[in-house]
């Protein structure tokens, strides 16, 4: 699904990713943890094709296609989805209008049949329900005046409708209350399937109680410095990152 080989990337002329390698197979859930500023969001942004994030070495393949050859919207059409750490507001553009444009473009590019207005509204309402968001939110401007937790749930709601092949969730758990965390986790889990993959960026083991990952990685200094199973997250929670980042030589990539 996703194959990242010795990826180097810079932001504003500064090297942030320094030889990152990661393989994510269909059906898998990977968790990426690591200290603040280690490059986790940078990785998700690079993969999604955000302006200003430049690949300076190595490559990232999405189902065998080099992502750097695709515009951000083409990556979306190819099944990539990023749930943002800080979802931005688009005043005056209703959530529903936004979803319509998004789904129209994406489903068309994917050769899926378009949804008529009735279907769209029905599906959107269902998706709202799944993440415990009042359908009234469909009428409001995209993320306009939403609380932090509502923004995160709104991202997941969109993800449920777009049914991406590869979902990158950047700290979707931060800002969620305990109930919302479970609701969101349930939503994400509902998307788990043999043909999809999920990459979770998180600081907290708690999320991983609900969305149990197949692999856990530690990103530090722009590289994956340690990988393991779900028990690695527990270990990190107890010991912090010092024992890994302090001795990067011994870490496995």
């Amino acid at each position, binding site marked *: 699904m996703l194959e990242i080989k010795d990826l180097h990337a810079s932001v504003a002329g500064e090297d942030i990713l320094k030889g990152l390698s990661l393989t994510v197979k269909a059906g898998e859930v990977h968790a990426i943890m690591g200290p603040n500023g280690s490059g986790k969001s940078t990785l998700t942004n690079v993969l999604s094709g955000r302006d200003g994030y430049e690949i300076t070495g190595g490559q990232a393949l999405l189902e065998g296609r080099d992502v750097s050859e695709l515009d951000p*919207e083409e*990556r*979306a059409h190819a099944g990539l989805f990023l749930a943002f750490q800080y979802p931005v507001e688009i*005043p005056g553009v209703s959530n529903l209008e*936004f979803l319509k*444009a*998004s789904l129209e473009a*994406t489903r068309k590019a994917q050769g899926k049949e378009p949804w008529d207005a009735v279907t769209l509204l029905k599906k959107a309402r269902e998706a709202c329900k799944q993440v415990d968001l009042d359908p009234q939110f469909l009428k409001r401007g995209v993320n306009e005046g939403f609380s932090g937790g509502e923004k995160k749930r709104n991202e997941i709601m*969109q993800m449920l409708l777009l049914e991406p092949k590869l979902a990158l969730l950047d700290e979707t758990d931060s800002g969620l209350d305990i109930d919302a965390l479970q609701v969101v986790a349930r939503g994400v889990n509902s998307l788990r399937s043999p043909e999809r993959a999920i990459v979770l960026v998180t600081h907290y083991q708690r999320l991983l109680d609900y969305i149990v990952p197949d692999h856990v990685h530690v990103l530090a200094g722009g590289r994956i410095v340690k990988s393991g199973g779900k028990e690695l997250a527990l270990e990190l929670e107890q010991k912090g990152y010092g024992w890994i980042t302090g001795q990067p030589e011994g870490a496995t990539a």
Partner: protein
Amino acid sequence: MTSQAELDKLIRSDYEAGFVSAVESDTLPPGLSEDVIRFISGKKGEPEWLLEWRLAAYHKWQQMPLPTWAHLKHPPVDFDEVSYYSAPKSMEDRPKSLDEVDPELLRTYEKLGIPLHEQEMLAGVAVDAVFDSVSVGTTFKAKLLEAGVIFCSISEAVHDYPDLIKQYLGSVVPQGDNFYAALNSAVFSDGSFVYIPKGVRCPMELSTYFRINEAKTGQFERTLIVADEGSYVSYLEGCTAPMRDENQLHAAVVELVALPGAQIKYSTVQNWYPGDENGKGGIYNFVTKRGVAHENSKISWTQVETGSAITWKYPSVILRGDNSVGEFYSVALTRHMQQADTGTKMIHLGKNTKSTIISKGISAGRSNNSYRGLVRISPRADNARNFTQCDSLLLGDTCGAHTFPYIESRNRSAMIEHEATTSKVSDDQLFLCRNRGIDPEKAVSMIVNGFCKEVFKELPMEFAVEAGKLLEVSLEGAVG
């Protein structure tokens, strides 16, 4: 491609209405004098009083200095270079129906997407089309007359309804009101006249399409709308012009009279040629629009301004009567080298008067977009209220947005609220859209439309769709 480069490309799209129609015209040589005014007046067979009125305006105009306070830079207009009268030749004998209209003219309208025949039947809209300076097709007259509504050209009204014209022409915008209004009063060519009798709700939206077509021909429309007590009318004005190199002068005057309890809704979509990327060509648009609102009446101006090289325009309301309401909803989009200085004046004279101003300015390219608004509360206007919201959206880093609010309150009971914001279409917003599969062109037009929503919802349905399309076209460009 960087998003800045994309934005640049988006705003560089060509002017869709850029073509010149080949109708022959009968044009006066350039320059202005008493003789020219006599010629215009004579050509129209006007009564003596109107000629005198024009001449008085001309003499006032000669004494007036050119206004320089607007945030606009342009070479001085040489008023001796302007030609003050032109009429399509085939108009010497006024066509009795659209079938008699020059087919070239009709084709021009069709290119603009305004098939008159279709409009008559489908939309139920009466169209008084102004091509250059003379009205050529007036439709649905019979049906309107049945309701007692008068909708005709000003020239016709001068002959057919002299009392109404005498009473109201210049009653809202006096001859010597300002430089451009004085010029218009001296040489106005034609325009629309509307009268809605007492208690009548005009059975359809009234609409005029304008088109400037003669090189170097100033266009001096004059519109007068009188809504008698308790009546209602919605009036649509839409315009577009062919591509040209010379700057074309346009100085229109619109006067609205809302008698007690009447409501006038005046909507404009303006898409005159804005000039090219380097500021070559484009219309100079100096407009005076004003309404007087008597007791319990309401006047709403809604405008979507995307065209013209220079826009100087402040649709205003004088809230003369108690409990009268004035509204101004505006979207002004500037790109390339366009300059807009536009806004409104709300003059509160009556008690319990209320005004609302919502202005949305969108600037792109190297353009400059200014909001200029005056809210004046007179000493006897107890409990007057105003709400002003003034938002600017910048596309790119080379454009400018400015806000010049003037508040003059002479009554302590007044409640005046003013909000202003400036924002950019951010890279983050664009990236969110693209990550959800939406291409940047669509994303920008969606974001801009969202920004304008509060104004668009004030437009009549068909116009709102048109306005949305117009913004999309104005922002359109090949993105690869």
